[in-house]
């Protein structure tokens, strides 16, 4: 119910979803990927990174991946990213 009200406000006011609904946002710039509103790291290896996000999991596949920076709600990942999967 609360989710639906927030969703309606977001649609009505055109405010980005990640601000009101707290959904995750993925921004990829060159070989760097930033995930905003992430909740934690589930698995980390140079070829696979799995992140917990609101409403599911975000899986990154690639090679030589490393975590550039990690803040409480934002994580920056560098390296060769081959694919992104949302479960």
């Amino acid at each position, binding site marked *: 119910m609360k989710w639906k009200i927030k969703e309606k406000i977001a649609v009505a006011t055109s405010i980005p979803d990640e601000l009101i609904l707290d959904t995750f946002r993925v921004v990829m710039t060159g070989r760097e990927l930033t995930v905003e509103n992430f909740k*934690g*790291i*589930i*698995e*980390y*290896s*140079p070829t696979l990174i799995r992140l917990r996000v609101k409403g599911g999991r975000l899986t990154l596949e690639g090679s030589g991946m*490393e*975590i*550039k*920076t*990690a*803040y*409480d709600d934002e994580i920056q990942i560098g390296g060769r990213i081959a694919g992104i999967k949302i479960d």
Partner: protein
Amino acid sequence: MLFVRLLGFLRGYITVEIIGRSPQRLINICVARGIFLWNIRCVGEGRVQGCMSINAFKNMPSATRKSACRVRVVSRHGLPFLIHRHRRRYVFASGIIALIIICHILSLFVWKIEVTGSEEIDRAVLMDTLSKNGLKVGTLASSVDNNAIRRGVMRDMEELSWVSVMVNGSGAEVEVRKRVPKPDIIEKGKAYNLVASRNGVITSLNISQGVTYVDVGNVVYKGQILVSGVIETTQAGILTVPSFGTVTATTWYEETTPVPDKQEIRTRTGDTKSKHTLEIFGWNIPLFLSDKISFENFDRVSRVNKLWRNSKIDLPFSFHYDKFYDIEINYKKLPLKEGIKIAKNNLKDKITSELGPEAIVNNITYEQWVDQKGKLNLTAVYECSENIGQKKEALYEPYGEDYGSGEDGGDN
């Protein structure tokens, strides 16, 4: 990015290795507790390396216990560790402190004065004037009063119309503008005559305004009125006008000089003395004990070597080499022909400096004569052709305000 790295270096950071079954759990705890981690990379099975600040590392033990991971310091980076490593090297530390103090002290002085603006202004004179008013290489930058220097330079150099002085760090920028000379202003209603600027014989007249008092072939004397600006008419009375025109005359310039009969021969005996000076910020530091030169006659050869002169920065350090050569002076008899040649050159220099800007030399005559002491003299007479008409205000007070109005003047 550079700023972040610089900040990291100043604050210091460590690279740690997290060893355990699930290092990501420790990373999650750190993130949740606000412990900033960066450059996290996997180095093996259950082994992750990352960077963190010194303060963050102090908060790690409780997080490691919770995650069942072990944390090992791999390397330490940054200024705090560098200082800690060299804390007992007192001489090194004092050297660095001395370097910082010297750099700070040197930055307090003006190292370079850059002059921009009108190229016609003599830079050497300007630098002298700036120096007199308190701005020279070596002046304490904080003591420079821009406005006082600007006012002083404007007062001392009349050819300047505008000066700007700005001190930026160790450099001073001086911008100058040359004054445009005021043109001859002819006041409305005033009469101007053309008077002879020197004695001569008039060869041609080209008068466009005024009453001509002389004619071609007349001998005129310096100060004589050639063309008058006060015109008396029968109908309009007295008119006052500025005279315009060219009065070309033949003029003569005469100068006399003794003919030298002997020539000075300067021969170096081989004895030399060196007196070198080091100049720092305009202060001359002598590198010799006695200032006296024992030679009766000497030639002085000076050379200035600027330090790092090939670099773009002009540093205020220079080395002055002064070498004094002992000279023996002898005189040899000069042939008459050579003596006259020298005398002619001397006369040419003297007369050329006196000639008017538009004077054309038509003829030169020389006369040799012996004075009462028996010395031979040479007199040169330069015959020139030049405009001798010089504008001068006529001492006449017109009655009417209107230019050329002679109604009232005519009644007088």
